[in-house]
């Protein structure tokens, strides 16, 4: 029996963007243009809008989409910036994005790509 192969990906970071419901598609489209694939979207509910924004808070949907995806560590700045701009995160109540370092990751990698590396 042939040995199963596993390739560890290193120098990888996890980027997570918490954003108003309905915006995950916009982010995902921008990510695909940057070459980042396989983003995962969760749904969630945020707080703070009602408490801190008063009446203007009605303009903010407390339901959130949490979109997370892995990026190469050396490209974090480029992608981080793009997500910030596309998601309009400089608007109050819109959401936020953060990066966490990952030690390693593994998934299916097309053979032609492993050979190239």
């Amino acid at each position, binding site marked *: 029996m042939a040995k199963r192969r596993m390739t560890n990906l290193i120098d990888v970071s996890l980027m997570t963007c918490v954003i108003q419901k309905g915006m995950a598609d916009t982010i995902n489209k921008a990510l695909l243009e940057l070459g980042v694939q396989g983003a995962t979207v969760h749904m969630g509910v945020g707080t703070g809008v009602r408490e*801190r924004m008063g009446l*203007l808070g009605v*303009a*903010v949907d407390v339901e959130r989409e949490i979109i997370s995806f892995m990026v190469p560590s050396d490209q974090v700045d*480029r992608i981080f910036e793009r997500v910030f701009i596309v998601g309009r995160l400089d*608007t*109050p109540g819109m959401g936020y994005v953060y990066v966490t370092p990952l030690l390693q990751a593994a998934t299916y990698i097309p053979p032609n790509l492993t050979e190239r590396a």
Partner: protein
Amino acid sequence: MAKNVRFGEYLQVVSVDTASITYSNVLPQPIFDAQGREVPQKVTKLIMSGSDIVNLLQPYLSTRFMEQVTAVVPLAVFLAVFQWLVLQKPVAEAALIGTGLLAVMIGLMIFMEGLKLGLMPFGDIIGSNLPRKLPLPGVLAIAGLLGIGVTYAEPAIGTLQVAGSIVDPQKAPYLYTMLNDRVTWTVLVVGIGVGVAAILGTVRFLYDWSLKPLIYLSLAPVILLTAYCALDPLLATVVGLAWDCGAVTTGPVTVPLVLALGIGVANSGGKGNSALSGFGIVTLASVFPILAVLALAVFWRFTVPVDVISAEFAAKSAAAAATTAKAWYEVPPGSDVKMGVQAIVPLVLFLMVVLFGILREKLPNAFIIVWGLFLCVLGMCTFNVGLTAGLAALGSQTGSLIPGAFVGIEAMPNAPLYPYAVGTFLAAAFAWALGYAATMAEPALNALGLTVQNLTNGAFKKSMLMYAVAIGVATGIMLGVCKLIFNFNLLYILVPGYILAFILTAMSTEEFVNVGWDSAGVTTGPVTVPLVLAMGLGFGKAVGALEGFGILAAASIAPICAVLMLGIYVQWKTKKELAGNLA
């Protein structure tokens, strides 16, 4: 001197002004009292600059406004272009009508947001808590009362009053009185009809009844009463109104509020898991008002003689002539504002009594809810102003000019514009296209389509349902207009239509029966109803028909048949494919 710069660094400098600060500098520092214990932090309000507020509100407002624009503008443009090109008459008072339409869009936008922020939380809290605090009869009583309350708050209900001002008391005395002097009673019985439907719908959720027998049992008396009224020359004019009332009631306030309560009850009884929860109430809510209005008409027929109505009309016109100055709330836009307040405030008071008096619950985010209720009233008033000046005016204008395509009418000196056959064909084609466009623009239909697609695991595609309903409504409106052109009895559309629907219902499965019968109510929203109603009335007046009601009634039955037929076809196809796979 040449210097190497990384492209990423270059981009970063030109596109974003980046800076880093420590998070601890952003958060408030912990505060300690004299004993060294930490003092709870006060939540400070966020201070936003002008551009922040613009950034925040711009997408919020534009998406909500665009929703209404897509529902109103294509229809209005279609009417105006048709009138201009085919009838060769530009829209009169275009500026006033345009302003009115703008008011309709803004009013609906504000109203819908108010509904979401103000009324829906009430519905949700009451729906989930009431069944636990009250025994079933109490819950049902409140469901019934809620049915009455929501009828008053339905935006399209104001159309009835607008329509009433066109009716001639000499030719159709009972129709006139039911829309003018006794309109309060008419709206009340419509409300009672919705209330009974809410009770039955809730019981149906709880005991998981099939919709089929309910349809047979509730429609049989309706058809009998319709036949009785249609044969009485004095009552014949009321039939169209009664059937149209069914379409008016199932709008954006009634459906979600009554559903919230019904689903809450069903969940508390442990029966809320069926995929079909929520269907059927719309059907019942459009059938019972028909019955109620017909019964009321028969009641007036036997209690109020025609002379009394004529005398009332004479007295009213005399009084109108005598008093020159009317109070501000009797002339538009004051009267529209009064109507708006009257529509929302009783419903809110009722909901508050239930919430504070019976449930003893507190409202979360009371401030936002109060703001939502304020928006509801404001939106309703704005919508009412626009309804009279915009939607109804445009609809009745186009409607009154269409007959000019095939017969001579007063408003058009060069009428008829076309030979009779071509003219009637144009009028029918116009009605068809109007129905198709109005239905495709209805946002509720999109939602229904998605539900059905999920329900049937994709066998019944969303687009298929939308086309079926739109073609059904279009054909129905065309039939309704034909009724006005050739002046035949509405019974000739309703009776064969409902017999066909009965047969199809017996052949269909429970899912498609629910979806099919509900699709009719869903398609008649607050934009379509006034426009089609006003068009029919203007049209009827121009061709000299007694009344122009009945178009919406025809527009309700046709999509039911269309969806049921499509459902049977889809089932047959699925079965055939399955058999093919096995063989």
